[in-house]
Structures are given as C-alpha cells and as structure tokens.
C-alpha cells in the first residue's frame, strides 16, 4: 500500500508534542497466573518510571465556554502537574489544622461519605493511584465517587492525584514490603505520604496518612515526616476543632463488638463464618460452589441464580442461617444442599392468594394491586425448578451461602424511632429489635437501630451523636459491614432528607427505595445529544411522509408523544393506515453513554406529581416528541387495509412526518361523535376512518379471545400551585382511547412478527404466561358462590365467562371480577426469543402468538431494542454487535423486567402517598361504597374482611372487632360468608358502606384506616366505640409500610 504523504510537514506542526522515547527508568513487573486449563503462565508488563511527575496533578477547568453549551453544566477537568513544593504550598487551601490528607484504599472504599462532606474541614486531599486502582477492583461505585470528588473543580478544595506507580521516587518499595501485593500497595501509599511530608517539611502544612489498616499505621510510625491516623480518631479530632460539625457520624463501622456496644467481650458468633476469598474463588472454579447474584423480596425468602453452562437455575435460600448475612444484590457463592433437602415443586404450589392474605392481614390499607405479584424468578426469566432423574418429580434446588464475592452495600432511606420504654407490655418486633440493640456509649454517641423503608433490607445499627435530631426525620444510612457476631449489619449516617411525612421528602424516599434513577443526566450522556441548533431535515434515505395528514391522540398535557396515526384512501378503494413512532434510535446510537444510561433506566417512571425520564428532556419532550406542525423523524409501519379491516400489505419505513394535530382523547372523541358531514376538516375524516377500522380490528381480536381486563386505577386532580391532590377521578375510557390502543397493538404485533422472521433467536419479545389453575382457585370458588362460572381453560373461554358474569343491580361486580382475574395472572414479561420455546412466546391476555413493544421508545428501552432489530431487519442499519449476544439480551430483559416492576411499584407508592395526603386534608373522613373482596373464614382467626373502594381505588382489610371464638359468629367457608347473630351477614362481592379516614400514629406517622359503617354488626354504638379502641391498640405499627415490615 503506497501512500504519498504531501502534508507531512503540516502534520508534524499540528501534532503538539514531538514524539520521544519513553523515560529510561523502567520496571518489568511480572506475575504468574493460572490459565483456565491449569497451566501456569508468566505475564510480563512494562512500567516506566518518570521523574517529571512533580508532586502529582490537580485539576483545572480548561475551557469553560465549550462549543456544545448543553455540556456546560459539567466541569471539564483537565489535569495539571504540580511542579514542586512551592507550587503545592500556593495551591493548598488553608484550614484549621493545615493538614494534607493522603487517603488509603480502605478509606476510599468505606469512608467516602466522610470525604464527600468534609470539604471545609479537610480541604486538602491526596489520592494515590494505587488506592484508586485497588478501589476500582473492589467496588466500582466507590471508585466512581472518588473520581467525582477528585475532579470537582472550583470548590474550596484541592484534590491531588498522585500517580505513585509511575513516580520514580515512590514506585520502589523496600524488599520486605513486596512479599504480598497488598503490602506492596500499602508501602507505596506510605511512600507518597513520606514524599509529600518531606517536601512540605518546612511549610506550615503537615501530612496525614489516613488509613484504617493497623499494620500500615505501625509501619508508618517510624517516619517523622507524616502522621498516620485512623479515620475515626482523625475525624473526632476534626470535630473537636470544628464545633458543630458531626463528621464522626459518617465514619463507617467495621470491626469488633466495641463498635456496637462493647458490652459483651466474648463474642458469640450468630452466623457461620464466611469462607475466605481465595478459597471461594477456588471453590467456584472447581465447581464446589456456585456463583450468582442473590435476589430477595423480604428477609425470609431469597434465591440465587446460578449458571450451569447455558442453563440458568434459581437456587432457593431458606432461613437466615443459610442466607448468612447476604443481602439483595450481593454476588455470592452458594453451596448446594444435598438432594434430600431440596424442595419438591409440588409442595410449593402454595396458593399465592393465601400468601397475599397473610401479608394483608395486618389491616393494611393501600392502593389496589393491578396484577399478581410477579415472582422474582419471573422478573429474571429463570426457571424455578429443575428436573431430577425422573421427569415426574421436579425439585427446587436449595443451598446455603458460604461466602460473599461482592457486596451490594448501598445507602438506604428510613427512620430512627423513639426509644421504646421497656416497661410497656406489648412490644412490636421492631421495638424489640430497638430495645435489644440500642445503647449509649461513654463518648456521647449512641448506637441506634435504623429501619430502612425498603423491607428487603434488614435494620442497620448506626452510631451517632445526634440521635435526637434524627427523630421524625427521614435519613439516609449506608451499610458498612456485617460481622458474624452481629445480628444486624453495621452502618453509618449519610444525610438527612427531611421531615418524615412531607410530600417531597416521601417522594424522594420512595424513589430511593425503588432504586429509580432520579439524578440529572451526566455530562457524558448530555454530550451525546444533538447540538442546540439541530435541524430536522429531509434526508434521502428516509421516506417523506410530510404530505400525509398524520395526527396524534394522547391524554391532555402529554409531553412525550411517541405515536401518531394516519389513514388515507387509496385509489383502489382500500385504506392506507400508518402508525408513526418517534425515531429515538436516530438520536441514541448503540453503545454510547446515552444508550447505556437508557438501558440502565429501562423505563420512564410516572409519579403522581413527577415524571422521571429515561432519556434527557431535550429528546423526551422536544426532538423525539411527535408534536403538531413540526417535522419529526419517525419509524412508520404502513398497512394497506381493506374497508373490512383485512390487511393486504405491510411496509416498514424510516420516515419524516409532519403532524397536523396533537389531539387529546376528548377532542378525538368529539370528532368521532360528530355527525357525518363534509366540512373538509382532514382531521375529522381521518379520525372517523380510523375509528371505524379500529372497531373492526377490535371485534376480530375479541373473537380470537383477547381479554378485556380492568384496572382499579384512579387519577388525582392536582392543585396547580402546591401540587396537592384536590380530587380523585376515575379514568374516563373513551372510544378514542380504544382507537389508539387498537392500532398500537396492531403495530406491535406486526413488528414482532417481522423481527422474529429475521432474528428468530434474538428478538426482544413480550410474553404473558397462561395463568395456572392454582392462582385462580380462590377467585373461581368465590365467583361460584355468587353463581358465576369462570373458565380459564383458554383466554377465549375466560373472556366469555367474564362477559356472562353480571349482576343487574350491581354493574360494578363485573368490573370487580375483571380486576380480580387480572390479579390472578402473572404480569407480562420481556424475554429474548431464543430463551423460550415458541409455544411459550404466547401473550395470553392479548391472545397473540407473539407480541413485543415497539410503540413507546421514548419511555421504554425495550422499544428502542425493537427499533434497532427492525431497522436491521429492513436493512437500514446494521444490528449492533451486542444485540446479537444472547447472554447480553438475557441480562437486558431481566433488567427491563425489574425496572418495569420497580417503576410500577414506585408509581403505586406515589399514589398511596397522595391518597394519604388527600384524606388527611379532610379530617372527618369520607364515607363511600365498597365491595368485599375476601372474607376471612379461617377458624380461630379474628374475623376480618378485605374490601375495595372503587371511588378511590384503595383496598384494605377491616377487622370486624369480634373475638375469634365469639359464639354468635358463624363462618361459611364454602360460601365465603360470615353470619353474625343470625342477623347480619357479609358475603364476598357484597356492597357495603365504609368510612375512610387518616389516623395519626406516633407524632408524625399517618396511615389510612377503613372502618365498616354498614351493615353494622353490633347494635349498640357504645360498644362500637370500645371496639375501635381495642383495634387501635392492637395495631402497633405506625404506618402501612412498617406494618408490612412485621411480616
């Protein structure tokens, strides 16, 4: 290949620094490693030592007026070398003790909160490269946060990065120190401190080496140039120097019993010890242990997904001893139990209804569920049981956790509660925990029990000096360690969110609880956005659809419009119907920061008062949103349809559209309702044609067995100023809604078929498993006692039987049945088509053999993937390489399922919060009609019923205030009915009258209460009041969430 270079001269000038050979000082560190096959291989690498590194580098913001203005919020830190001690002294920020703090690895790993919040107390920080490298290998999050601190420019802080590995004066370590890699690293960090100490010897600054490693501190004592301190002692000194600061609360807790209380010197280990890291990885390698991620829903149940070749199996972990201190999200090593301890799957077909009712028995009042709780396995697409030997008896593997490969310690929000008085006779479990573990320390601090809101997380013991000020506040605590002798993990306080119960604070809490990303998008993500002056132009490889009367129909106030429709007459008498979807993938290229962030968020989250976007606002509400009267890029599906709604032809096109109207459902409905007249408004005609086609499509779908399900959802009318809820409304379902839904379903199904034809094993699809009989049992028996026969054999039969279940006088009962049957089904899930047999791709609810999500790429990542698959299928863009990896797709789908669920839960929690605020504003409470969902007919239990209030979409359990062995009580289990005193009876699906009000519990905690008003079980009102009081006593838990914790 000959290449005549004419510009070599100018090139040379452009290239800033002339090329030189690397410095001559040079190490060749080699290490031995074992290959997979067991061979020992020596790996060599080069390491150049330099003498031009000065005293590390600090960061400056070089060009603050960047071309791309959107990225301006992010500081663009550029490293600058510190030449010598004099320059360093001028750069250092003066503070009380004039300390330059060199951080060791363990500080970065565990005490970042101290570093983050101590900008004024210790402004001068040094981060040795060794510490950062070690930190990155252990905890990626900690590394990212350290770098964040380090690269902050413009604060009152000086952070120095010290490349000690390559610095000629620090790279060498004494012979006796390099025996172990850890010792070598520690020695190098000490070298940094020593070098800085020597350089600053004659200045007013002193160098502190911050380390929690005793060995390292002992070795450092021999050097006079710097001082080695543990984090706790140093921070306590800082706190004394700075009255009012309470940094010591932020210090992570590790270590012995002294940390918790020091009462018992003999430590009795509560948990078995973990196997050492080296043995763990060896054990995993030789197949003795399995490696996997632990997932759990509550402290009792957990499972670990392990891989055996291509197969993935969920291993159930039972009991806290087997679980051995692992928390949700940890990467653990499990040892399988012997076969006789495995659970047979038939044993575990426990009726989830039963499960549900046990949880709800705590008179929990909440937002009605929409679907059945998905099992964790379903969210992760893992089969639950494996077949052992004979096919008839599938067993669920169980195991115990022998060690933890990577901790998932994070920060959690929650509260600390008032000290319970030990004299009180009846203590809730929570108070018992508090009583057993809280204690004061001689140094004025006390150990408190912090209860996270998230019930997956165990209570955390924290040590603080400001206990009093935490009461009534929502605070964030981080988990640090969980020694074997402690029943609960140790942690430290991070920050205060605000007073518990206030709307904004609780919103923040629930975002954190469900791990919904709510921080603004990072600079790297924003840098991927098109520039401000981005113009949407016609490009040759797109189809120009701007002449078509495209319009969108959405709820009022919708900002992220991702679908638009059109329908025109063709010369041959057929219609051309088009669904145009925002072309998000045009702006989001695969593999970029914005794509990774979107894949991680997976979905936008809609709260009552807030929307948390998956993509930055510029895309969500502007460039991608198919607004009226502007050109937009779109991905269009075009059908040729006969007037009888037969599809003749389908085409997929990347296009440019020009929407003529963004209608609301109301407007569209008024167009549909308009009488036929040729007033020439193209919008009316289009909507009418679409509506007539939609009706026909719908008929066909129903014919094929699609279910019409219902949801108890309500929406709030918010006050425009305070965003407080002023009223609750039911969702109005107009024909226009059905119209849009119909075409979206059609588009999704069409696209699913298309991508599946091209990528049979790589398509991202959505399946809805057929319900199993056991889940429906309860509903079927309840329906039977009211004379309805529900048949779930096929979705068609179910739809028909639901249609037939009507009570003339109570039209709502039919809807109730639909709601309840939705709840008996597992939710739909994303999956990769290669992972399931074609038979399992079926979408039960829609009665479609394949289904996917294509129509909302602005708010769902699955749609983005499908867009890419479709673009590859029609040859407009190649398939990104990672989308052709099945294991990547598996992880992606699992993440999407999890995030989707979390977004749903967060949305519900937000509704719950607003419901509480809504009822709290009305002190008297409200009387409303309610329907009985379930009557507790179990013997020996306190009689109770669960009810749903359709007006507000809330549901709860009412205790009837009767003793379990009341002689007048007659339970009729097969009738789902209880009769009291041969007079009053309550049966399932009865309409009753209830009162809903808010009760204050424990100063700041509030909860919703539902009381039965009619039919009254007892005649005397005096007696009723007494019962109420009894009931209030029996409910100790201050809020709904805590009530759930008890279980």
């Amino acid at each position, binding site marked *: *290949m*000959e*290449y*005549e*270079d004419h*510009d*070599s001269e100018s*090139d*040379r000038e*452009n*290239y*800033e*620094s*002339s*090329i*030189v*050979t*690397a*410095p*001559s000082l*040079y190490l*060749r*560190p080699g*290490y031995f*490693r074992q290959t997979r096959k067991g061979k020992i*291989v020596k*790996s*060599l*690498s*080069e*390491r*150049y*030592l*330099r003498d031009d*590194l000065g005293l*590390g*580098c600090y960061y400056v913001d070089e060009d603050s007026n960047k071309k791309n203005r959107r990225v301006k919020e992010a500081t663009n830190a550029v*490293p600058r070398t510190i030449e010598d001690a004099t320059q360093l002294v001028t750069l250092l920020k003066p503070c009380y003790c004039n300390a330059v703090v060199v951080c060791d690895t363990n500080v970065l790993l565990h005490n970042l909160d101290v570093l983050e919040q101590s900008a004024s107390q210790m402004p001068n920080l040094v981060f040795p*490269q060794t510490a*950062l*490298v070690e930190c*990155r*290998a252990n905890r990626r999050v900690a590394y990212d946060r350290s*770098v964040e601190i*380090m*690269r902050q420019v413009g604060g009152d802080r000086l952070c120095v*990065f010290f*490349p000690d*590995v*390559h610095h000629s004066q620090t790279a060498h370590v004494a012979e006796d120190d390099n025996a172990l*890699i850890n010792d*070598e690293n520690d020695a190098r960090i000490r070298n940094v401190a020593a070098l800085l100490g020597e350089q600053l010897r004659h200045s007013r600054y002193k160098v502190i080496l911050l380390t929690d490693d005793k060995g390292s501190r002992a070795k450092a004592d021999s050097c006079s140039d710097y001082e080695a301190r543990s984090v706790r002692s140093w921070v306590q000194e800082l706190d004394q120097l700075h009255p009012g600061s309470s940094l010591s609360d932020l210090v992570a807790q590790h270590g012995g019993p002294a940390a918790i209380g020091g009462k018992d010197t003999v430590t009795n280990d509560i948990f078995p010890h973990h196997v050492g890291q080296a043995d763990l990885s060896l054990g995993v390698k030789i197949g003795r242990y399995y490696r996997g991620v632990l997932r759990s829903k509550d402290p009792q149940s957990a499972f670990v997904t392990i891989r055996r070749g291509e197969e993935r199996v969920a291993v159930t972990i039972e009991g806290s001893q087997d679980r051995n201190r692992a928390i949700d999200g940890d990467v653990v090593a499990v040892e399988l139990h012997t076969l006789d301890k495995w659970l047979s799957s038939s044993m575990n077909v426990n009726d989830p209804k039963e499960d549900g009712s046990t949880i709800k028995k705590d008179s929990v009042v909440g937002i009605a569920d929409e679907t059945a709780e998905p099992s964790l396995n379903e969210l992760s697409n893992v089969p639950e049981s494996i077949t052992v030997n004979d096919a008839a008896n599938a067993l669920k593997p169980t195991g115990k956790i022998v060690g933890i490969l990577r901790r998932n310690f994070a920060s959690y929000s929650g509260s600390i509660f008032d000290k319970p008085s030990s004299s009180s006779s009846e203590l809730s479990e929570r108070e018992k925990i508090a009583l057993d573990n809280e204690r004061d320390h001689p140094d004025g601090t006390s150990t408190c029990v912090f209860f996270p809101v998230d019930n997956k997380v165990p209570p955390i013991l924290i040590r603080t000096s400001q206990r009093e000020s935490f009461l009534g506040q929502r605070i964030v605590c981080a988990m640090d360690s969980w020694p074997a002798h402690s029943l609960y993990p140790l942690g430290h306080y991070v920050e205060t969110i605000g007073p518990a119960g206030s709307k904004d604070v609780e919103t923040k809490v629930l975002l954190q609880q469900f791990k919904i990303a709510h921080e603004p998008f990072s600079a790297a993500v924003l*840098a*991927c956005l098109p520039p401000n002056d981005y113009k949407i132009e016609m490009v040759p490889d797109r189809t120009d659809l701007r002449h078509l009367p495209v319009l969108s129909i959405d709820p009022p106030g919708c900002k992220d419009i991702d679908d638009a429709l059109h329908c025109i007459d063709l010369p041959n008498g057929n219609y051309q119907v088009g669904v145009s979807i925002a072309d998000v993938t045009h702006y989001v*290229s695969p*593999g*970029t920061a914005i794509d990774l962030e979107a894949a991680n968020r997976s979905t936008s989250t809609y709260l009552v008062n807030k929307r948390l976007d998956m993509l930055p606002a510029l895309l969500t509400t502007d460039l991608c949103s198919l607004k009226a009267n502007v050109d937009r890029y779109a991905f269009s599906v075009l059908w040729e349809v006969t007037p009888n709604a037969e599809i003749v032809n389908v085409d997929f096109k990347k296009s440019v559209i020009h929407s003529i109207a963004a209608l609301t459902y109301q407007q569209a409905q008024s167009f549909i309702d308009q009488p036929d007249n040729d007033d020439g408004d193209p919008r009316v005609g289009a909507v009418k044609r679409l509506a007539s086609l939609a009706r026909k499509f719908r008929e066909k779908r129903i014919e094929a067995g699609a279910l019409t399900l219902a949801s108890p959802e309500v929406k709030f009318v918010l006050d425009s100023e305070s965003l407080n809820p002023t009223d609750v409304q039911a969702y109005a379902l107009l024909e226009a809604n059905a119209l849009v839904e119909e075409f979206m379903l059609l588009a999704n199904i069409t696209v699913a078929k298309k991508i599946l034809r091209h990528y049979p094993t790589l398509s991202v699809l959505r399946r809805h498993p057929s319900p199993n009989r056991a889940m429906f049992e309860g509903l079927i028996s309840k329906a039977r006692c009211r004379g309805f026969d529900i048949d779930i054999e096929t979705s068609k039969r179910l739809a028909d039987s639901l249609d037939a279940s009507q009570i003339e006088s109570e039209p709502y009962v039919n809807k109730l049945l639909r709601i309840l049957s939705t709840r008996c089904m597992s939710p739909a899930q994303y999956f990769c088509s290669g992972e399931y047999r074609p038979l399992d791709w079926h979408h039960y609810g829609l009665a479609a053999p394949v289904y996917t999500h294509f129509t909302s790429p602005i708010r769902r990542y699955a749609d983005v993937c499908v867009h890419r698959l479709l673009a590859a299928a029609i040859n407009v863009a190649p398939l990104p*390489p*990672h989308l052709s990896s099945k294991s990547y797709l598996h992880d992606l789908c699992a993440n999407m399922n999890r995030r989707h669920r979390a977004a749903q839960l967060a949305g519900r929690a937000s509704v719950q919060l607003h419901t509480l605020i809504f009822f709290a504003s009305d002190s008297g409470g409200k009387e409303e009609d309610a329907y009985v969902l379930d009557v507790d007919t179990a013997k020996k239990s306190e009689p109770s019923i669960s009810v749903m209030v359709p007006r507000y979409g809330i549901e709860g359990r009412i205790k009837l205030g009767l003793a379990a062995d009341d002689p007048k009580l007659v339970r009729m289990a097969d009738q789902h009915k209880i009769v009291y005193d041969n007079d009053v009876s309550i049966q399932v699906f009865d309409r009753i009258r209830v009162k809903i009000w808010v009760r204050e519990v424990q100063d700041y905690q509030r909860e919703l209460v539902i009381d039965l008003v009619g039919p009254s079980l007892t005649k005397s009102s005096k007696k009723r009041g007494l019962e109420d009081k009894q009931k209030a006593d029996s409910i100790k838990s201050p809020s709904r969430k805590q009530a759930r914790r008890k279980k």
Partner: protein
Amino acid sequence: MGSSIRRTDLLALSNLRNDGRKPGEIRRMRVQMGANTNTGDGGGVGGSALVDMGLTSALATVRGPMACARRSDELPDRAMVDVSVKAVPFAPSGGDRRVTNPNTDRRLVEMTHLLKRALEATILLQLYPKSRIQVQVVILADDGGRLSAAINAASVALIDAGIPVKDILCSCSAGYAGSGVNTDEKTLVDLNRQEESSFAGQNAVCLPCAMLPQRGTVVMAQCEARLPDFDTMDRVLGAAMDGCRAVFDIIQAAIRERASILLGMRRGHGTPATNVLKFDQVLIAYTNG
C-alpha cells in the same frame, strides 16, 4: 501487577498511559545488529538484527542476494524478496488469540504479505535481477506492535547485510483509546498489547504504519478498526508517522554505533563480539541527550 484501572481512566486522570508513558512516547527500543552470526549457510552475504520495542522482540535474518531456488521464481528485471514471518512457540500470543500453529496462523501470513510489500518498496531491487533476497523474521515475544517490530528488525537486518535501500524503513503504530465518539480523545503512539486489544466491547483503534522517513513516504499502513471520519484518520496516521521518525532516530544511532565499532575493528582495535554487544547504554545516552 495486573492493572485494573481502565486505560482511558488513567489517561484522563493524569495524562499518563497505563504503563506510565505519555501519549506521544514510544516504548523503550533496543536495536542489536548482527545478532545472529550463523547466517551464512553456504552462500550469500548475511545480516541480522534483533529489535526490541518494549517487551515485543523480533529477530530478523537476511540472506542474499543469491540465486533463486527455482527458475520459475526469477524475475527478469529485479530481485524477488522471499519473506517469512514466524512466531516462536513460546512467544505469548496476543490476548484474545488462541495459540495457533505458527506455520498456518493467518495473522502471520498477513504480516508476511505486508512486510513483503513494505520491503519491496524499500530495497533497490532492480540492481539484482533474477536473484533472490531472503528475509526471515522470528517473533520472540509479543506485547503488541509485532508487525512494527518485525518491519524494523527486517530493515536493520537489510542494512547489516549491506543490501542497498532507498531509505531506512521504519515502522510504528498509533491509535487511540476509547470509542472515538469523543473527539478530544488522545492519540497514542506505539500501542502495547493492552492498548491495542479491544476493551469492553469497544474496538481499539490501532494503525501500524511503515515509512521511509527521509523521503516522507508511507509504504505500509493498516487499520482494521472503524474510524469515525477522515480527520481522525489523518490525526492517527500523522501520529504514527511521527512515531516512525522517532524510531528512525534510534535505528540511525544504532547503525552509526555499529559502523564505528566495525571501523575500529578494521583498524585492529578489537574483535567483533556481536552477540554480546548491547546497545541500550548507547541508546539511553542518546535518548536522554
């Protein structure tokens, strides 16, 4: 120590690469001429050279010009260059590459062709019609940039063998870390294996280039990665050419050193003990000066 810090991280944090070099620095290079004395197996003038670029090491042996083994190989107007590139079995093969048969490794076959083209553009072939110049390169160790090392070794060996060339052929690679989406990525010169292997699904850009530095002619350039635009291509190629010039300085110094020793020998100052002759002291003195 296996450094787990990502290569772009350290670069952003301190403007240093993973092994401690600045972006524009080439690795330590050692050139040893006449490394293999056992070259004259019965005919032709021999020459050899051992070139180390960092931990990558290549030994080249040149025989010829000599008669072609087969008449059919002869070219009427110029000499034919017979190139073979082999890797020793104990040379660590590149990160993702499996250990393959060194005779049939397609990467080596490809390298053979590239090297042949580069040498044909360098040697004054028309001086030796109907004859054959045999160049054998053995990769002794591979830590990235083995094509460059092979070209440099062959070039020095040609000079050791006294075969007339247009210029001293020099080779060096350049590339950049990261995805290339960010336009202010730093261009790196002389990539080592870690830098040229793909990382986390991102293909690293690595462009080896060989040129005749005094003429400014690029005789070989190869790039397998996808570059975003021509500007980037220009930038990377420019950096690679600058790297070649740095390599040229080192090779030239080594040749002068060798020549002065040989001249001294002719005057009777010593014996050529080439096998033990080490040039790194000389080079260190050179590069620091």
